């Protein structure tokens, strides 16, 4: 079976696909990391992704300008993040419920807009895979092994991975990051030394939501180049789980996303190669692994102490 496929080609294929498939998870989970580090659990990621996917697709199909499309995803992400922040920070609504509400809003709104503004599923030309051509005849993507794995992805995939060190730097090395972490850990203490708890949380939630918007766009104008109702299909919720998985650290989140996507790719190859595993079992693999990893107790130590707890001065 598949005699011409060498083992190395299969392994390369799995790694390449794992990296590509990690893109939307990474954007969304890194965004959620900011939000949760500041103490706000945003379960609306899925809804924001849907809206980001829709608006970027719509702008791309109307104007053909992919950067404008990406900007549209960011803007809608910021707006929905602002809404989530007003509700959960200023009005101190229960975060789990308002997050689910935001998700349902995004699901319904993106479906409604899709039906009225586009009507039927069509394809567009999205961000293509870069080839990094040095000269006309030589491209980095042509390098055996390394080229195939690292040099033939869409620009958004590079953006997602570049965001990992940027997130680490933002959280660990900037004053802003220190504020975000402190309001998530001990808002009273932060407040007592003059940090505006709500302002730091607003910023983190809005940044996280903007990234969720980009995560949606990475599907509709880069990986799939199509918009369909409810197309995110749970990626946003898995991204929330990946934040727990990664112990609230950007690098941990990246490994979580890579592990999840690589196992997804692995199970697809397992089926194509005709390994004697039932498809029902192989499609479960990534989820089982996530649950197992979530159950490992030491990771919980890193949970922000004030996660899901609204802050009001003097009341608590």
């Amino acid at each position, binding site marked *: 079976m598949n005699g011409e496929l060498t083992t190395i080609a299969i392994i390369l294929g799995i790694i390449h696909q794992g990296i590509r498939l990690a893109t939307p998870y990474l954007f969304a989970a890194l965004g959620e990391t900011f939000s949760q580090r500041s103490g706000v659990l945003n379960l609306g990621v899925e809804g924001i992704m849907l809206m980001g996917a829709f608006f970027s697709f719509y702008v791309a199909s109307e104007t053909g300008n992919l950067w404008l499309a990406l900007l549209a995803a960011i803007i809608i992400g910021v707006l929905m993040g602002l809404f989530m922040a007003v509700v959960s920070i200023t009005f101190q609504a229960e975060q789990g*419920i*308002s997050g689910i509400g935001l998700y349902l809003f995004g699901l319904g709104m993106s479906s409604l807009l899709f039906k009225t503004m586009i009507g039927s599923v069509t394809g567009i030309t999205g961000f293509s895979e870069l080839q990094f051509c040095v000269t006309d005849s030589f491209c980095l993507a042509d390098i055996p092994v390394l080229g195939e794995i690292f040099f033939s992805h869409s620009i958004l995939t590079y953006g997602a991975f570049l965001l990992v060190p940027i997130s680490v730097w933002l959280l660990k090395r900037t004053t802003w990051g220190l504020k975000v972490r402190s309001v998530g850990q001990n808002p009273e203490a932060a407040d007592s030394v003059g940090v505006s708890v709500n302002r730091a949380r607003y910023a983190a939630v809005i940044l996280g939501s903007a990234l969720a918007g980009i995560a949606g766009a990475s599907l509709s104008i880069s990986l799939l180049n199509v918009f*369909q109702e409810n197309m995110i299909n749970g990626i946003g919720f898995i991204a929330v789980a990946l934040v727990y998985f990664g112990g609230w650290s950007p690098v941990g989140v990246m490994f979580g996303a890579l592990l999840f996507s690589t196992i997804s790719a692995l199970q*697809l190859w397992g089926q194509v190669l005709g390994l004697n595993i039932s498809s029902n079992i192989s499609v479960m693999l990534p989820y089982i692994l996530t649950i197992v990893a979530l159950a490992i107790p030491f990771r919980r130590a890193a949970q922000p102490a004030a996660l899901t707890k609204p802050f009001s001065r003097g009341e608590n």
Partner: protein
Amino acid sequence: MKKKWLLGILILVLGLLLVACGGDTASDEEPAAEADTPAAETTEDEAVADSAESETMDDETMDDEAMMDGDYPDIEPVRIALVMPSTTTDLAWSQSMYDSLKQLQDHYGADNFEIAFTENMFNVTDAAAAIRDYAESGYNLVIAHGAQYGTSLFEIAPDFPETSFAWGTTTNTGEEEGVTNVFAYEPRAEQGGYVQGVLAAHMTEAGIIGLVGPVDAGDAKLHVDGFTAGVRDTDPDIQMNISFTGSFGDTALAAEAANTHLQAGADVLTGSSQQVVGAIGVANEAKVPWLGIQADQSPAGEDVVVSTILYDWVPTLLEMITSNQAGEYGGRVLQLTLANHGQVFLYDEDLPADAVEAALAAEQGIIDGTIEIVADPRN
């Protein structure tokens, strides 16, 4: 604290309302589905209209139902409700049913043929509530368009003895439970799948075909079984690579599955369920032909969707409506077959002539009964 919960719940309700709105608004504003055109391509020759025969047709042989003008029987005004797991624009299972309803509505007029629908009812409990609501509001026929709705239907149906209910893919009308007003419907997806398998086997040059499936059950399983048998009967040396995503809506994973098939050397791709728009996107980029099923998927990839098995529910729907108006509210199994034009083939004109010829011969063979579809067991 109470205030916070209230606010949260308020937003949740707002969100839910909006989700519900998605369906309602669209029902009014949806542009008319293109009627008639899909059925025309392959069935014109065989469509010998004969109204006397169509009145006496039984379950298995709903003959001569290619819906040309004049084929539509006279019906009383009817109200039909549709509860579906996906959406009216899914380019697959749900859309195929909705398009057929719209086609009938275009013919009979909105006053005589009322359609209501609820989308995204993958959750069975929600669907059951919607089904009951529709029955209570006096709809004549309530269609629960999914194999997961059966149990709920058998609980609800006895409370509304003069309402017809329908569900599928299944052959179970609830007769054993004493239910008399439920129709069961079943597209014989292995028939269309077989013909497409023959077509694909004639198209592939690499000798490898990739299939992106949702789950290995129901309609999708029948399709895969038939397709694989069609390929095998044409050329047993052709490699069939099959992968299931474990979901109907995982567009991203379906795209990755298509990528996997391409890397494994496939040069013809196919698959079923709404998530395949992701896979069609990949086929589009790689300029690899795609064979579609259920609804016409060419909008998602005009140049690569070269053939479609269109589910035409019009004959089945008319059968249920006329039965209902004759006082027979259920109890029968209706099948969508090649013979009764419940499945209609669309072939792109750029397809190689010998491949189309072989496919047409396979269609005829299945209709005549000279081809028997024998599925190989899979893991």
